[in-house]
C-alpha cells in the first residue's frame, strides 16, 4: 500500500503482508478502505480537512483478468459526514495493481493543485497548472497526450475543484466513482488527478487454475446467450422499461412512480436516436456501456452513457422526456465531475421547491423538463453560483439552509441523495435505502427486483433476510475489486468468484467464509458511521415515503406504514445482531473478530 502526503509528495510503502491475517480478513478493496478509515480517522475528523484519508483500493481480483476490475475509493464523506465509498471500473484497477500497489492512501492537503504520478518506480506530485479548471475528461485528454494511452487517469472536474459536496472522480472516458463526494475529498487535498502508469505482471498463486476458471466463466456468460446479448446491447438501460412497468420509476422529484414520457428516454429511444457504440471494462465480454452522441451548443461530444440511474435521475426525475436532452444533462455531470444521481435529486428538489414558492431559481423557469433551467442549474451548481452555491451542499443541507418546510421534499438518507427507485410501494427497497451503509444508494441491495416478483407490499421476515444476504453478496465485489454484473445480471454462479479468489491468493475459502468477511466489512463501516453519530434515527427512508400516498399508477394511494417499517427495522437489527438502536453489539463484533479493533478506536 502506497501512502502519499499531499503537502509535499513524501511517501512510503506499507507491506501489509507483514500483518497478513489482520488484513486478509477484510479481503481487500473496500474492506481495506474500511480498516484504514476506521484506524486513521475519528469522531471529529473534518472530511474536507488534512486528517481525512482518501483510499484508492483495488482488491485482489482486479486486473487479473476477471471481468471488470474496480477500485473502491473510500473516505469520510463530506456530503454525509459518515463513511463514504464509491467504486469505479474501466481500467484504473488494472493499472493501479500494475504499479505494484493494492491501495494508494492520500493524506494531508496542499493549497495549490498538483497531480499525483504513480508508476512502479516513481511516485511524484507534478505541476497541474495546465489542467486545473478543465473538465474531468479534458484533463484526462491532456494527461494522455503526455503519458500515452496505456495509463489510467483519475481526474476531478470544476465541481470537484469548487468543492461541490457530491463531486465525483472520473476514470477513463467517463467512468465515475460517483457517490458520496469522493471528488470533493480529492480536491480538498489539492489533487487534480492521479496518473497510474504501470505495466507489471500481477502475482497469482495458481495461474493455471485461475486461467481455466476465467475461460470457463467467460464461456458461461456468453452461452447465456439471450441475457448476454441483451445486457451487452443495452446494459442497465432496460431497467427503465422495467421500472416503469412495475411502477418504481422516480418521476418529478420522486412525486410519482411512473412517467408518461418514459418512451422518449427508453433504451430503444437511446438505440435509435443517440447510440454510437458500446464499451466494456477490461477483460469483460459484456459491453454494458453505451457510447452516445451529445449535441450541445452546436458542438458534438461523446458520452459514456446513459445508463439506468442517469435515465431515472436526470430523465424522469426531472421531467425530461427525450434522449437528446438526457444525454446533455448526463454529459454535463461527467464534464463538471459531479455525481449524476445526487445532481438529479438536487435539481429535482430545486424545481419542486420553486414551484411551491419556497425558493427562486435566479430567474430560471420552475418547469419540469425545461432544458434551459436544468442545464443552467447544473452549471450553477458546478461553479457554486447563486442558488447553485446552496444546492452544491447537497439536498439535506440545502433544505436546512432554505427552510420553510422544504426538507419534506429532500430525498436522501443520511445526507446521501436517493438513487433510482421510488419506494412508497416497495417496503423492502425502502429498508434497503434506510440501511445501506453510505446512505440512500442501491449498490448494497436492489431488493426491489425480488420484491416485485415475490411479495411487493409485504414487510415480513423473509424479505429482511433476503435484504441482508444481498447486502453481503453485492458489497463483496467491492472488496474483491471486480464488477458484480457478470454475477447479478448475466447470472454467472457466485462460486466462480470464490474460486477466482482462492486461485489468485492461494487462500482457501468457501462461500460461507467469504460472505462472513463481507459481513465483517459491513459491520466495520457501520461502526465508522456510529462513531460519527449514526444510529436508528438515521435508518429511515425520506419523509415523503411515509407521508404522501402515490398519486397515480397501479399503486395509487399506497404509502409506507411507519409501524410496519419500524417492525422490519427491528427484525433487521435482530438478524444482524445489532442493538435496537442500530449499533453492532459486542457479541456480534466478537463473532466477526473485530471487537478488539473497534474497542481500540471507539
Amino acid at each position, binding site marked *: 500500500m502506497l501512502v502519499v502526503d499531499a503537502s509535499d509528495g513524501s511517501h512510503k510503502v506499507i507491506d501489509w503482508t507483514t500483518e497478513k491475517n489482520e488484513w486478509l480478513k477484510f479481503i481487500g478493496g473496500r474492506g481495506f478502505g474500511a480498516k484504514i478509515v476506521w484506524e486513521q480517522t475519528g469522531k471529529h475528523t473534518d472530511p474536507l480537512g488534512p486528517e481525512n484519508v482518501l483510499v484508492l483500493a483495488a482488491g485482489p481480483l482486479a486486473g*487479473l*483478468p476477471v471481468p471488470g476490475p474496480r477500485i473502491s475509493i473510500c473516505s469520510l464523506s463530506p456530503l454525509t459526514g459518515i463513511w463514504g465509498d464509491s467504486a469505479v471500473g474501466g*481500467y484504473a484497477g*488494472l493499472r493501479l495493481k*500494475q504499479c505494484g500497489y493494492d491501495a494508494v492512501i492520500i493524506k494531508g492537503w496542499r493549497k495549490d493543485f498538483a497531480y499525483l504520478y504513480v508508476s512502479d518506480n516513481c511516485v511524484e506530485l507534478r505541476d497541474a497548472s495546465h489542467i486545473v479548471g478543465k473538465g474531468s475528461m479534458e484533463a484526462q485528454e491532456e494527461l494522455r497526450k503526455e503519458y500515452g*494511452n*496505456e495509463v489510467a487517469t483519475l481526474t476531478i472536474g470544476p465541481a470537484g475543484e469548487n468543492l461541490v459536496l457530491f463531486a465525483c472522480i472520473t476514470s*477513463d*472516458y467517463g467512468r465515475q466513482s460517483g457517490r458520496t463526494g469522493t471528488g470533493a475529498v480529492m480536491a480538498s487535498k489539492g489533487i487534480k488527478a492521479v496518473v497510474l502508469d504501470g*505495466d*507489471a*505482471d*500481477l502475482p*497469482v498463486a495458481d*495461474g493455471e487454475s*485461475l*486461467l481455466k476458471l476465467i475461460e470457463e466463466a*467467460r464461456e458461461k456468460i*456468453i452461452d447465456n446467450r439471450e441475457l448476454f446479448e441483451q445486457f451487452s446491447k443495452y446494459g442497465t438501460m432496460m431497467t427503465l422499461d422495467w421500472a416503469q412497468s412495475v411502477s418504481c420509476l422516480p418521476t418529478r422529484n420522486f412525486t410519482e412512480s411512473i412517467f408518461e414520457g418514459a418512451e422518449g428516454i427508453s433504451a430503444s429511444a437511446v438505440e435509435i436516436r443517440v447510440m*454510437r*457504440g*458500446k*464499451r*466494456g*471494462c*477490461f*477483460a*469483460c*465480454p459484456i*459491453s454494458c*456501456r453505451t*457510447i452516445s*452522441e451529445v449535441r450541445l451548443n452546436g458542438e458534438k461530444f*461523446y458520452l*459514456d452513457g446513459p445508463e439506468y440511474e442517469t435515465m431515472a435521475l436526470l430523465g424522469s426525475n426531472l421531467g425530461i422526456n427525450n434522449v437528446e436532452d438526457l444525454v446533455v444533462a448526463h454529459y454535463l455531470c461527467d464534464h463538471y465531475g459531479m455525481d449524476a444521481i445526487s445532481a438529479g435529486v438536487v435539481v429535482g428538489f430545486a424545481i419542486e421547491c420553486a414551484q411551491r414558492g419556497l425558493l427562486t431559481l435566479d430567474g430560471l423557469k420552475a418547469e419540469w423538463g425545461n432544458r434551459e433551467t436544468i442545464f443552467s442549474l447544473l452549471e450553477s451548481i458546478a461553479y457554486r453560483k447563486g442558488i447553485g452555491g446552496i444546492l452544491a451542499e447537497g439536498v439535506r443541507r440545502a433544505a436546512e439552509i432554505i427552510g420553510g418546510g422544504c426538507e419534506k421534499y429532500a430525498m436522501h438518507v443520511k445526507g446521501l441523495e436517493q438513487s433510482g427507485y421510488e419506494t412508497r410501494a416497495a417496503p423492502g427497497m425502502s429498508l434497503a435505502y434506510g440501511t445501506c451503509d453510505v446512505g440512500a444508494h442501491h449498490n448494497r441491495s436492489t431488493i426491489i427486483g425480488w420484491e416485485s416478483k415475490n411479495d411487493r407490499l409485504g414487510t415480513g421476515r423473509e424479505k429482511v433476510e433476503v435484504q441482508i444476504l444481498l447486502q453481503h453478496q453485492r458489497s463483496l465485489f467491492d472488496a474483491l475489486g471486480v464488477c458484480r454484473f457478470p454475477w447479478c445480471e448475466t447470472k454467472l454462479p457466485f462460486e466462480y468468484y470464490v474460486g477466482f479468489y482462492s486461485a489468485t491468493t492461494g487462500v482457501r475459502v468457501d462461500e460461507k467464509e467469504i460472505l462472513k468477511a463481507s459481513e465483517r466489512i459491513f459491520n466495520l463501516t457501520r461502526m465508522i458511521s456510529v462513531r460519527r453519530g449514526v444510529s436508528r434515527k438515521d435508518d429511515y427512508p425520506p419523509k415523503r415515503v411515509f407521508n404522501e400516498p402515490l398519486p397515480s399508477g397501479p399503486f395509487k394511494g399506497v404509502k409506507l406504514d411507519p409501524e410496519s417499517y419500524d417492525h422490519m427495522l427491528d427484525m433487521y437489527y435482530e438478524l444482524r445482531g445489532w442493538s435496537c438502536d442500530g449499533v453492532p453489539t459486542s457479541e456480534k463484533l466478537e463473532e466477526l473478530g473485530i471487537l478488539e479493533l473497534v474497542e481500540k478506536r471507539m
Partner: protein
Amino acid sequence: MPERCTACMLCMVACAIEHTGSLNPSRARLRVNNMLPMAEITFLEECDFCESLGADVPACVKKCPKGALRLG
C-alpha cells in the same frame, strides 16, 4: 472491424497468454486504445499473426467476444 470493438482488451490478454504465458495485457503484441467514438487497434512489429505458433487463427481473433478482429 474496429466499430465492433468494445475495448475489453481480451485480445491483448489472449496474445500475452499465447506468446508469454503471462496474463499481463502489457505483454501483448497488439494494443487497443479506447478512443471515442471508435476504438483503435494497432499491431506491434513483433506480431506475426501467430504464424510461429502454427495457428490457423491468431489468438486475438479467436478470443474477441465481439468479432472485431478478422484475419486478412
